């Protein structure tokens, strides 16, 4: 009796696990953003995840079926006596080589995504002197407990990375400042430089599958292309102090980013008299006695 109980007991759990996994998409227990990343690269990252999930599922079901079979068979076997095994060299070799092969496959297969995500662009930057046509550059400074954002003057086109570096080094005339809300261009590349004002933080936009630590004293480049319009939550993914949870921000992808930045700039230039957005009065020293 109790043998059969244990046999069933150990069989039921894997079955529950598989059922839960199988229904989870329908229950919306899935990735943020309706299961689909809002960046092309994010979609490839998801694909990798699903690939790994597939491999793991096959291995899991295989081992669990074998385990259940062995238990079942053993529970019926009243006559044969157990014997002591000193291991099987062949088996050891097989179950070392097969997972190693699988791992190697995954390692090679994902290289491209990783290279696009963190390496290739960055490397190019040092060799090719000139950015790809990045349509937005912004500086994002994480600090306890908010995201301070600086955009270059609307309409700025950087021609070289040197120019970007010079811009990052200090404030410039016409810069647009914002806090907790980052506007990015829809369907065009965004390049942000991530800084920290104090301790370590992490820029995490789950829907975009973008996550990067911000390190004090460094300016880390992160690039992504958002291909769905809308607003996405920005959170801090590195426990950075007792107000860590307050670091809620928003990334919004808009069609006409430059117009949006001009609006922000107009508000920032408000002098209390000239309504924001109207052109400044014709410049002349006479106007100010």
């Amino acid at each position, binding site marked *: 009796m109790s043998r059969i109980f244990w046999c069933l007991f150990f069989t039921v759990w894997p079955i529950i696990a598989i059922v839960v996994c199988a229904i989870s998409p329908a229950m919306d227990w899935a990735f943020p953003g309706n299961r689909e990343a809002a960046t092309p690269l994010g979609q490839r990252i998801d694909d990798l995840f699903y690939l790994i999930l597939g491999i793991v599922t096959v291995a899991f079901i295989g081992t669990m079926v074998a385990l259940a079979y062995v238990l079942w068979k053993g529970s019926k076997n009243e006559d044969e006596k157990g014997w002591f095994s000193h291991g099987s060299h062949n088996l050891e070799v097989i179950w070392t080589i097969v997972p190693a092969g699988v791992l190697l496959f995954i390692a090679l297969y994902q290289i491209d995504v990783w290279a696009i995500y963190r390496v290739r662009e960055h490397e190019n930057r040092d060799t090719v002197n000139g950015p790809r046509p990045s349509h937005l550059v912004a500086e994002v400074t994480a600090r*306890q*407990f*908010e995201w*301070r954002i600086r955009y270059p*003057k609307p309409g700025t086109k950087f021609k070289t990375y040197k120019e970007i570096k010079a811009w990052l080094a*200090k*404030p*410039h*005339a*016409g810069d647009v*400042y914002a*806090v*907790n*809300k980052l506007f990015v261009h829809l369907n065009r590349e965004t390049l942000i430089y991530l800084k920290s004002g104090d301790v370590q933080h992490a820029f995490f936009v789950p829907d975009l599958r973008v996550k990067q630590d911000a390190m004090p004293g460094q300016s880390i480049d992160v690039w992504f292309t958002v291909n769905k319009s809308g607003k996405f939550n920005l959170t801090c993914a590195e426990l950075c*102090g*007792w*107000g860590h949870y*307050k670091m*809620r*921000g*928003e990334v919004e992808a808009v069609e006409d980013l430059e117009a949006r930045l001009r609006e922000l700039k107009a*508000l*920032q*230039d*408000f*002098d*209390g*008299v*000239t309504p924001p957005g109207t052109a*400044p*009065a*014709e*410049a*002349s*020293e006479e*106007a*100010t*006695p």
Partner: protein
Amino acid sequence: MTTRRLIIPLLASLPLVVGCADYQAEFVNDERVATLATTSPDAASNLKNSLDAHFGTPNALVAWGALPIDFGEIGGTVISANGNSLRVSLETEPPDGLSNVAVVVETETPQNRTAGSYNADTRTLTLLEQEAAPAIAPGTSLRLIGHKLQAGRRLYMQHCMHCHGVTGDGNGPTARYIRNHRFNPLPRDYRRGLFKFTSTKIGFYASRDDLRRTVTQGLAGTYMPSFLLLKTDELDAIVEFIRFLAMRGEVERRLLDHLQPLMPSDDGTPPSDLADLEKELAVDTFNQAFADAASLVAEKWVNAEDPDNRVIPTTPRPPDTGKSRIRGRSLFVDTKINCAKCHGEGGRGNGAVLKDRQKIPGTDDKYPTPGLRDDWHKMIQPRNLTSGIFRGGRRPLDVFRRVTAGIKATPMGGFETNLTESERWDIVNYVLSIPIDGAFIDEHGHQYHGGDRSHAHHDHDKPADKPADKPADKPKTTQPKSAKDKK
């Protein structure tokens, strides 16, 4: 054995459960109330009770009509009544959580009742039991007052309390982590009605818009973070609650001033004519003093909303040209205006006054150590204007307001009377240019960063980004030749 294995984790998780129990927050009284209680316990408890009666406790707030606060009011009529449970039709569907809200029932003699709960599906409002309350007939109109203040309290407890404290005394549980640096401003103590970054003139309090700006944008460079993603109604509710805390604190302070003669002297001896004084101050004139304090405080907050008391320039910002900046610079270092005595020649916040010991306000004594202090006696550093951080906002309007009305509760006073508007605008143009082009201006009108003129930036010889600024009032060609500082 097994039971023990089970019980220990259960015990270990007990604090978690206890920690989640409903937290009975309390308003703490000014510490002078405790001092007062040593000589005149009656006066102290009188004060506490009156405060409780008019402001309530965090979990049972009182919407006192004498205060200029939008407590959140919803009108409605009774459709049918069954004892204390009324089916009502409300003008606007209330946000959740109407429990403890005040209900004014307009029966023949209006009743002041308290809502127990409201069920939005059945539209049933249940009032708390009240003795000898007359029956309420269908058709009676009623007003629910206080839901906004309660929402403000909830949000405040969630987002702000851990720094600013339950009472708004700036003494929340995490405030001590901010204290560890000499120049970090502490979370604001609201209880004096003092707010630094306002749009109002000298001597006026903060308007709702000013508080909204602080909460949505944060105060860059301090621990006051931005709460940009709060919804508009949440923001309004929080702002109302801050004003409530400020008013409560200030009424308390004013009453303590009223009761000051009852305080023990420094060595703890009570005043000689205690009994007479007590009768006069804590009994006969107390209620009048309370009402006076409240109306005075109310008036200040009402005035802060008056558009006439706002700093609004009459002329637009003049073009940001080199000439304007030079004029600004000369006022900055001018001996009469002398921003430089605090902010330093190079704008780095290291002016000469930092070497002096300052007078303690209201006394003839000086502080034991040199340096500037704010109205809370905390060390304060004049801003490093080269940093590009503007806590109160970087719009020209914001800086204009800072120069006009000063930064309240800090040593930086306003210059409304000493400077004409166009002079103030010149200063604004200059101050805004410092982080970009440097604080020093040489004889050619070039701005440069102190000390390293050889590195003066070629790409910044334009005054600013305004298209109108192209006129060459600054020579574009010459680089400063000598390395002499303007110091």
